[in-house]
């Protein structure tokens, strides 16, 4: 138990180091841009600020949903719907949740991490992430540019691709686990 806790602390500090290194690299890019094209720096910062402002409500919603899922979703429940033994219903629910979810993709990562730790299948995480590409509120503009038939066909193929992708990821993960087990 103690060993597991120590391992988790080590992992989270490593992740934090990785996160801050990434942020520092991006800041360095901005410093370089300041010396090369200072006017573009202001525009880039303005574009970033706009993105940040637009996702604030979603961020708040995500934190709230994470809190609710921490309280309501126990590992047993998740593994029942989206866990190892979840059948067709799990694939259907992750597809549906993926389509209905909104906001930037990276604001959902912490929630998925939480669900993964509670037993969510990796294939279903992939399905959820892939189906986030289908945005119901944005369909009208897609129809305007490409037509309704195009949009319907594309959405159907994307759902099929998401399930295939999830299955492939699970097969590879299973093989990796078996191989690792044989090597240990």
């Amino acid at each position, binding site marked *: 138990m103690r060993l597991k806790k120590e391992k988790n602390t080590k992992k989270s500090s490593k992740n934090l180091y990785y996160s801050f290194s990434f942020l520092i690299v*991006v800041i360095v*890019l901005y410093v370089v841009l300041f010396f090369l094209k200072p006017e573009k720096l202001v525009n880039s*910062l303005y574009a970033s600020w706009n993105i940040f402002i637009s996702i604030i409500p979603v961020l708040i919603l995500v934190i709230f949903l994470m809190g609710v899922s921490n309280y309501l979703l126990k590992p047993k429940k998740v593994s029942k719907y989206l866990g190892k033994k979840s059948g067709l219903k799990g694939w259907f629910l992750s597809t549906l949740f993926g389509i209905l979810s909104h906001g930037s993709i990276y604001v959902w*990562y912490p929630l998925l991490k939480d669900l993964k730790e509670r037993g969510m299948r990796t294939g279903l995480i992939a399905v959820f992430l892939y189906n986030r590409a289908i945005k119901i509120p944005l369909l009208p503009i897609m129809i305007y*540019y490409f037509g309704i038939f195009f949009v319907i066909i594309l959405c159907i193929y994307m759902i099929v691709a998401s399930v295939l992708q999830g299955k492939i990821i699970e097969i590879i993960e299973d093989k990796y686990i078996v191989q690792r087990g044989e090597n240990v």
Partner: protein
Amino acid sequence: MKTANKKIENKRKQIILSFYKALKSFGATLPILIGVILLIGLFKVNIPSKLISSIFTGEIFRDTFFGSMIGSISAGNPITSYIIGGELLKEGVGLFAVTAFITAWVTVGLIQLPAEASILGKRFALMRNVLSFLFSILVAIATVLTLKVII
């Protein structure tokens, strides 16, 4: 009465703890989140849409591949990809390339890859993005071919 109060108190504690955990978990992802937003800002301002239209030539497989490549390194709201894709179509870029471009834009996240790898694991993130890239090509070809059969 005392047991009922204790139960309510326990529930309250659990709720507070659940939201504290949520905030803590979210706080750990903030450096990556800020980094990604700043990077998207850089891409939005410094990669002009004219550069995108100069790359597509008309060859189906080459265009579909490049469509997926450019869609993969681009990021932002999908609405932007629909608008760019629609405008590229108007400028004569093929539907294979544009479909691959908009599909990869929303399914592959090279810019978000560090965040995804850090939070969901390197192996998973890499596998998911490589497969999404391949599927964006297949989905584009299947969609356009089906559309040609139907219409």
